[in-house]
């Protein structure tokens, strides 16, 4: 199970990478593996305002359709249009080319509600037991 060291994580298995006030997000390796082959990603609208932990994306795989929650609140500034044609990017490169959306963060303090890579690793271990 791959975990990116510099990213932050949610209990719902989203990752987020924050640079200045711009948060890039996607789903973790654990999440993509649990979902199986991703067949469709319902992307949010650009310019849409989202709250932290609000459902704003859904990812459909051969097994299930799962809700994805915004790891940080703010305005969606960009979505990964490549996922429309190639949703499998989420399976192939979930921390890179499989990113889902960029959010202009409203309140940096919200990042304290997220887990570090280390904390996320322990969290995953706790799920397995």
């Amino acid at each position, binding site marked *: 199970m791959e975990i990116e060291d510099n990213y932050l994580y949610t209990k719902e298995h989203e990752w987020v990478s924050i640079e200045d006030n711009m948060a890039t997000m996607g789903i973790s390796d654990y999440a993509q593996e649990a979902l199986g082959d991703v*067949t*469709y990603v*319902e992307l949010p609208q650009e310019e849409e305002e989202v709250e932290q932990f609000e459902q704003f994306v*859904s990812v*459909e*795989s*051969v*097994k*299930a*359709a799962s*809700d994805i929650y915004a790891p940080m609140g703010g305005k969606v500034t960009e979505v990964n249009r490549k996922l429309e044609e190639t949703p499998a990017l989420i399976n192939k490169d979930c921390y890179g080319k499989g990113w889902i959306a960029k959010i202009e963060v409203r309140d940096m303090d919200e990042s304290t509600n997220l887990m570090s890579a280390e904390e996320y690793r322990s969290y995953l271990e706790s799920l397995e037991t």
Partner: protein
Amino acid sequence: MNPYITNTPQEVGQMLESIGVENIDALFADIKPKHSPQSFDLPAGLSEYEVVRRVTQLALKNNVHVVPFIGGGYYDHYIPTVVGALASRGEFYTAYTPYQPECAQGTLQALFEYQSAMCALTGMAVSNASLYDGGTALYEAMMMAIRMTGRHKVIMDGGVSPIYRKILKTYTHHLSYQFAETPVVHGQSSREEIDRLLDRDTAVIILQNPNFFGSIDDFTDIIKKAHSVGALAIVSVYPISLGLLKTPAQMGADIVTGEGQSLGLPLNFGGPYLGFMCTHKKYVRKMPGRIVGQTLDAKGERCFVNTLQAREQHIRRDKATSNICTNVSLCALQAAIFMAVVGKNGLKEMAQLNLDKAEFAKQLLSKIKGVEVKRSAPTFNEFTVHLPVDASHVVAAMMSRGFAAGFPLGRYYPGMERYLLVAVTEKRTKEEIERYAKALQEVLN
């Protein structure tokens, strides 16, 4: 203990205790006494022959020999014998959804062909494998539009079947949606009132063609306006009329629904009927119901499977597109056979016959003193006539002369007690129409 209820008295006690209710009566205290059964003391059973005799006696009370001129959304069309003969074959004769493609290819292919035919008929890109009936299909379409737009206001044209409108309101009774109904003026949708109501809170406008009064309309302008404020448009259609009329796709509709009874299903007492729903390809994942798709099997040969199931309730639980993922496969199968037998040109001819016979009936009826055939809007096979007396009295008198004369509009539209809705299908002969006109003349004099 009742053999069908496996809870022991102890288990019942535990369950009641756990939810903090004293006894069974207290559990059902909310049900008013007038609605609860007076007694569970059922009579003793009868022998098979006694049952047959009793039911036959009851069935004889039905007057099945009247000539029907009644429509209102359900029509007396001819059903080729082959429809019943094929649909009742053992291979097909199951009402339940085929989950297992490895042993249900025939059914799945038939449903795929049903979907293809519905798309060809409505002009839309995708169809589901059917819903319960025209009313519930319209409800599902409305909910789909509400989900897609995130808005809560629904504009409903007054020409949409009053039965459907009641279904929508019943289903949403405990939800906070805002309904606005627009009037029908001279048989057609009020553009003025629709313009006034359409705004950025509007999720959807619901229209019907032909409308409940039989009038044909072209909704292109209304739908364009709806789209300009980001609202969607649903058009409920009468499939046989599409043999001649502009399709809802040509008018710009986002979702098309309707009652499929006219496509090879008999007029039973309310069902089982057939609800259909079609939409654009881009909305396919928002559409409720089952969809059969075509793919290749392991040997590279064409095969059929249920597809896009991840949006259905057995997988997506409370986030599913609908709490219904059942369909009426057997009825859809009958419709598929009907459409295949009648064919594209056959459907055109059939629609033309309906139109011509209805126009002939209009001519005859308009010659009767006191009868006014409403001509403010064009019609297909159903039209409204104004009578000098209460239409329900006329219907009763016509019944004793062997005719189901039509639908008395006062039943759903207060103030329209003297209006009768008359339907004329391809099955009505010239002679029947002439006899009908003669009988109406006698009844009115």
